[in-house]
């Protein structure tokens, strides 16, 4: 968990490196093809288009990073399903534009709700 949790402080998580074997190259290729395949599905599902080839390639890179992020979220949150969503081509800071909650210092004048009965 600590390895995975380090993702949350922006380091490359020091997951145990896979033992290099002669089919390592194939794994990498599979992963690459897989990511490209997922990206194609993602673009058609969410109607994504990019103005230039550079933008497209950049977004593919962001998408791959988010695939890994989804994998880590799945590890940390196994009772939900994580994967490709409409936000999978956004960097974390771009994703922040879909939020918008300011920090709250509870206003002193905010009325506290009276305690309600919770039995019967």
């Amino acid at each position, binding site marked *: *968990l600590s390895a995975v*949790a380090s993702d*949350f402080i922006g380091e490359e998580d020091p997951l145990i490196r896979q033992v290099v074997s002669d089919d390592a190259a194939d794994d990498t290729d599979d992963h690459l093809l897989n990511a490209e395949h997922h990206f194609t599905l993602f673009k058609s599902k*969410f109607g994504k288009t990019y103005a230039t080839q550079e933008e497209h390639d950049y977004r593919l890179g962001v998408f791959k990073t*988010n695939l890994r*992020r*989804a994998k880590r*979220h*799945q590890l*940390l*949150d*196994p*009772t*939900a*399903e*994580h*994967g*490709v*969503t*409409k*936000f*999978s081509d*956004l960097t*974390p800071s*771009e*994703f*922040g*534009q*879909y*939020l*918008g*909650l*300011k*920090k*709250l*210092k*509870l*206003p*002193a*004048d*905010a*009325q*506290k*709700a*009276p*305690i*309600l*009965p*919770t*039995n019967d």
Partner: protein
Amino acid sequence: LPTDFDWRDHGAVTEVKDQGSCGSCWSFSTAGALEGAHYLATGELVSLSEQQLVDCDHECDPQEYGACDSGCNGGLMTTAFEYTLKAGGLQREVDYPYTGTDRGTCKFDKTKIAASVSNFSVIGVDEDQIAANLVKHGPLAIGINAIFMQTYMKGVSCPYICGKNLDHGVVLVGYGAAGYAPIRFKDKPFWIIKNSWGANWGEEGYYRICRGRNVCGVDSMVSSVAALNIKSQ
């Protein structure tokens, strides 16, 4: 308290909306809670205008200099309730439609108020009290840490590790005793949360997160609102 409760079953929740790439979640959380309160007060379900809050609400938090509601740059539900109380209420969505930007001027028309706030309260970090206020006062405006929501697809989210710093505002509409989680073969009691990222995100726009330990700060910023019994003009 009922073991399961969902305001969608009682007609108090409007359709899932989409804030787009504008940091206006606070206005959707505010409008969603007031829609429910207005329904409880009048029996009519009206979709209310978030754009009025984005354009017109610049109410500030008295405790924090400079912490004012500011359109796509963020806001707070409690200060938005304060604005709505002072302004007299919110217009309908159809009369003041959402544009997803904050470059427009305020076009609030007092003669077209559809729902008004009579008062609002803040609820402590007590899950029974949150559930009781939900059942009694309708959908609640809540804050949450959205870090796991970017990749969420479905199921009951219950991360082992999740920050409690809040960065997203959503609407708590119900709760369930247990949602079967195939991966862990465990039942997880959960909150049902209405999000504002469109129906093509999550479970048709909704998010379920486990109850019990303030996961992702979900219990730490909860407010309820009561509406005046006025029919929309």
